């Protein structure tokens, strides 16, 4: 792992006498490789390593008896700082119901996440209603309906034809049923599909959500930056949900997206069942990315 590689690098360099900037460069190359292997975007890796270098060429590292450990400490600190120093909660709007809009690429885990968050919020004493605004994918509404039935949450499907109408009608339905939070599931879409991104903007306008949550698969590679930037520019993303972290993926996409959009990671998905959701912990993801 990176910690061992850095110790090894510095042990080898130590043999040559006093450490200099070039030696730190060699150690930082190990950091770069570890981050690339973890799917951190290569531009983000470059700027991150430069920030680490600024701190690492100080006296504390060069004169330290354990420079490898010092560099690891700096990397860990910079990573945790970047991930967000503490968990950020979901915004609750002062109008009822609070609306949360979920968006993202195809297959990222939106529908499953909407179910999970519905259960999570209900356990916190809220009264969620789920809105099935994906009218394209075969049996998408059915998928959300089944999750709702299995977990005692009302699901609004409307006419199954017009996502903008379904969203606004779901909010109206929530008022009638005295539900205080609406979670809107939308169809997976490409950030480069103008028509579907336009539709999402219309849903946003009609629903006036307190949060627009981008759902991203934790195994996403270099493309994560392009996708997140595009969704952010077109919609304004208020939070990120990183799914499928129960896999062995390092999850570097989280770092890239965070660096490039500044959006806080609010939750992580850790399984297929409804209990597979956790509030985000920055230091845990930092350790995972470093391997």
């Amino acid at each position, binding site marked *: 792992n990176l910690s061992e590689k850095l110790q090894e690098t510095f042990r080898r360099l130590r043999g040559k006498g006093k450490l200099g900037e070039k030696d730190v460069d060699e150690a930082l190359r190990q950091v770069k*490789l570890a981050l*690339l*292997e*973890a*799917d951190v975007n*290569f531009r983000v890796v470059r700027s991150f390593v430069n920030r680490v270098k600024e701190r690492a060429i100080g006296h504390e590292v060069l004169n330290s008896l354990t420079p490898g450990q010092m560099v690891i400490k700096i990397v860990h600190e910079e990573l945790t700082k970047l991930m967000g120093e503490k968990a950020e909660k979901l915004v609750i709007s002062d109008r009822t119901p609070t609306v949360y809009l979920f968006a993202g*690429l*195809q*297959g*990222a*885990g939106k529908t499953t996440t909407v179910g999970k968050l519905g259960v999570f919020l209900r356990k916190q004493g809220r009264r969620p209603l789920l809105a099935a605004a994906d009218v*394209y*994918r*075969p*049996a*998408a509404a*059915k*998928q*959300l*309906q*089944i*999750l709702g039935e*299995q977990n005692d949450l009302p699901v609004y499907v409307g006419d199954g034809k017009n996502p903008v109408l379904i969203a606004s009608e779901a909010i109206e339905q929530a008022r009638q049923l005295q539900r205080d939070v609406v979670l809107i599931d939308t169809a997976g879409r*490409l*950030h*480069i599909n103008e028509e579907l991104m336009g539709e999402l903007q219309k849903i946003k306008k009609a629903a006036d959500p307190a949060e627009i949550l981008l759902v991203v*698969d934790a*195994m*996403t*590679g*270099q*493309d*994560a930056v*392009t*996708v997140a930037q595009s969704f952010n520019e077109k919609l304004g993303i208020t939070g990120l949900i990183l799914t*499928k972290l*129960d*896999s*062995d*993926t*390092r999850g*570097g*996409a989280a770092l890239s997206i965070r660096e490039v959009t500044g959006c806080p990671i609010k939750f992580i998905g850790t399984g*297929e069942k409804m209990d597979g959701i956790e509030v985000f912990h920055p230091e845990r993801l930092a350790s995972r990315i470093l391997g």
Partner: protein
Amino acid sequence: VVFHKKISPEFYDELEEILIASDVGYKTTSLLLDKLKERVKEEKTDETNEVKEYLREIIEEILSIPSPDIIHEGIPMALLVVGVNGVGKTTSIAKLAEYYRSKDKSCLLVAGDTFRAAAIEQLSVWSKRLGVDLIHHQEGADPGAVAFDGITAANARQVDVVMFDTAGRLHTKVNLMSELKKVHRVITQNLGERKLVNILVLDATTGQNALSQARTFDEAIGIDGIILTKLDGTAKGGIVLAIAVEFGFPILWLGVGENSEDLRLFDPGEFVKALFD
């Protein structure tokens, strides 16, 4: 893509960036650039355009892996479609049904995902749209039992191609991989004359984790070929180069959209061209 005119360290840096940005990965990128520099030395070239062309050739060669026959004349086939969650298995099966029908092959679909909400319904919608039969049990049924039902029905009806959809599963979940091995065993023990092709579906947006997926699914049931989906997005799917180098699995088809006609036979030359677009 703008390249430096002269061959220089900066020029190679630029090539490295393109490959890394395409999810080729650092290890495979270094391998490719080493091969390229050897070739440049041999050819004694100083034109960056020529160097770009050599790189294209090197990559195309790596990707030109002989693939299993996907259309056997007269020999019935079974396709077992596997992969992690959300990559496009179910939709790819719909596309394969359309592909084989266009070749006048009779098809049968098997709804082997008995776990996820509305998984059977999703495949059922596709089967109706495409006019192909579907074998399914109810949600929660044993996937091995569904597979047995599927392979015996396919043989009894003498269907040309039977396609098994499976539940998305993370390769790290030992119990789910055991379940897959069981499904695979049920199919292989009842194939008769049928030829089985195990297809791993990979999402083009996936990074280095695809290597771990490929390794684990191969260890479990043996992978004969890959379908790479979602290439209609901005991801380049470069991880398939790393997979080709490390495992040698051929890429069979590409998924380029959400409709049943959005399937292309894999062509190494076209893929490489798109990589550098």
